[in-house]
């Protein structure tokens, strides 16, 4: 069983998202982290491998800047291989083009199961899971968890609203958009990643910038503060007093 995990990195929301005067992200100012749902997908793939014993997990990323540490981290966590698709791809590579690049590679790479995150925070033009699946024309399902492989089939749970779910069985090759892994993503130390960076290597594959249909993004902007909360200033003590006064005023507590 060959499993691919499609990974990308996205701006870290812990930092302020700076915009240029033209309303584009000031990407040079941002720090990037692996998309959290791709991390979940990697974890689920590693759990599937642990269960099956003889599966091979490959982390795959399009080189849009600095994806090496993301890929080495995947190797340190237990991925068997890491593939970096290189070409003229910038940080502004739309998902649409990213997906076409990934699909081009995946078409001939012979994976039985492809996992990726259900979404990423920058998916304005669609989620990678569906986009790649459409290109490959393989059975797929997104918003899933609890992946199990048996008898050449893949089982998973697809989540709907309010806790309703369906159990699906897909023929392979199949592609899944992972909502969450069964366990929190495993942790590796920086020392371990460093060690792997020295001992292992990334496989480079050439990719080409494809022609894809696009909906042009005119600008990005921060939501207007119209309905914004009344903000209480002060230390936790002062804020707590404000909250008590408000709850009292609304008769939510005994006076």
């Amino acid at each position: 069983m060959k499993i691919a995990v499609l990974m990308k990195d996205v701006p870290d929301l812990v930092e302020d998202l700076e915009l240029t005067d033209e309303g584009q992200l000031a990407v040079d100012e941002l720090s990037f982290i692996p998309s959290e749902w791709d991390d979940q997908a990697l974890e689920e793939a590693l759990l599937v491998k642990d269960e099956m014993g003889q599966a091979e997990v490959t982390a795959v990323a399009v080189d849009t800047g600095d994806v090496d540490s993301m890929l080495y981290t995947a190797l340190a966590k237990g991925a068997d291989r890491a593939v970096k698709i290189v070409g003229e791809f910038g940080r502004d590579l739309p998902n649409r083009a990213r997906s076409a690049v990934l699909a081009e590679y995946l078409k001939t790479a012979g994976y039985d199961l492809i996992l990726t995150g259900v979404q990423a925070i920058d998916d304005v033009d669609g989620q990678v899971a569906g986009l790649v699946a459409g290109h490959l024309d393989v059975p797929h399902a997104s918003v899933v968890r609890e992946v199990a492989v048996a008898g050449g089939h893949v089982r998973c749970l697809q989540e709907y609203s309010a806790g309703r779910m369906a159990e699906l069985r897909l023929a392979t090759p199949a592609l899944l958009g992972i909502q969450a892994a069964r366990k929190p993503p495993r942790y590796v130390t920086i020392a371990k990643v460093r060690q792997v960076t020295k001992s292992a290597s990334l496989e480079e594959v050439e990719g080409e910038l494809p022609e894809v249909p696009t909906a042009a993004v005119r600008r990005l902007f921060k939501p207007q503060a119209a309905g914004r909360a009344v903000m209480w200033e002060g230390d936790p003590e002062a804020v707590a007093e404000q909250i008590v006064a408000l709850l009292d005023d609304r008769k939510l507590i005994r006076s």
Partner: protein
Amino acid sequence: MGPIVVVTELEAGRVADASQELLTKSREVADALGTTVTAVGFGGQAASALAGAAADAAIAVTGSAAEVYSPRVYERALASLLKEQAPSLVMLSNTTLGMDLGAALASFSGQPMVGYCTGLSVQDGQVVALSQIYGGKLLAEVEVPVTGSIITAIPGSWPAASAGGSPAVAAAVAEPAPEVELLQVIMPESGGDVDITRSDILVSVGRGIQGPENLELADELAASLGAVVSCSRPVVDAGWLPRSRQVGKSGQTVKPRAYLAMGISGAPEHLQGMKDAELIIAVNSDESAPIFEVAHFGAAVDILELMPVLAEKLQGRAG
């Protein structure tokens, strides 16, 4: 110009609210573009549900394969319908169905796609969508070609259609797709843990709680308020609280008299489950967190410092 095709979802035999919203918005856009609205629905109840829908035409996709959502069946049926209809736009909700099918339909029909749409208008003949990305921190203004672009809209973005219509309902039959088999539908567990939808006050914790060792702070605060502890999704995925406590798109929708959001960023998927609470108080150390866009009151302080102080001040005052 082709119609705007709205992919509706049914709930208890009726067109779901999220789909009603798509119909309202599509009518407005169709009027501005000079085109019509075609509603598509699935299953044996689709024809009757769509007969009163606010659309100019409707298509009910039936057959045993169409009764319950199944990715490949629905996708194939839609792909061939879209080929026939040559729509100007295709609208889906950003639900599981929309997230599952939207991007795939876009990619094999060779159409552009806009996800997480919260606004749609026609400006000088150009369809312009607003898309909510970066966990709700930014909006993108996107030009949408009317070539059949796929749009998935976040539920709750628009009012549901108030008036219905009387479209003629055409029929289509869905083919089974054995390569993706629906084994069973699992209904949410009931009983066991508390029902967060019944609590007047919720103390809701997010990833800002940082670890299970801090949950007792939330428990103490909730106890001092006569409240129940609920949470965001990552807290459940990390195994810190049971799934029955989860508020949001894939959890519960709650409407308490007061919702205290502690260390929750306010991602659209979370807001979907709590934005109609009567009173929302948010505490988050990041003053640019989107939760403050829907909260009535807020403070940018550390919840680990605030919660014990607040619990202390509330001693003996639970209503």
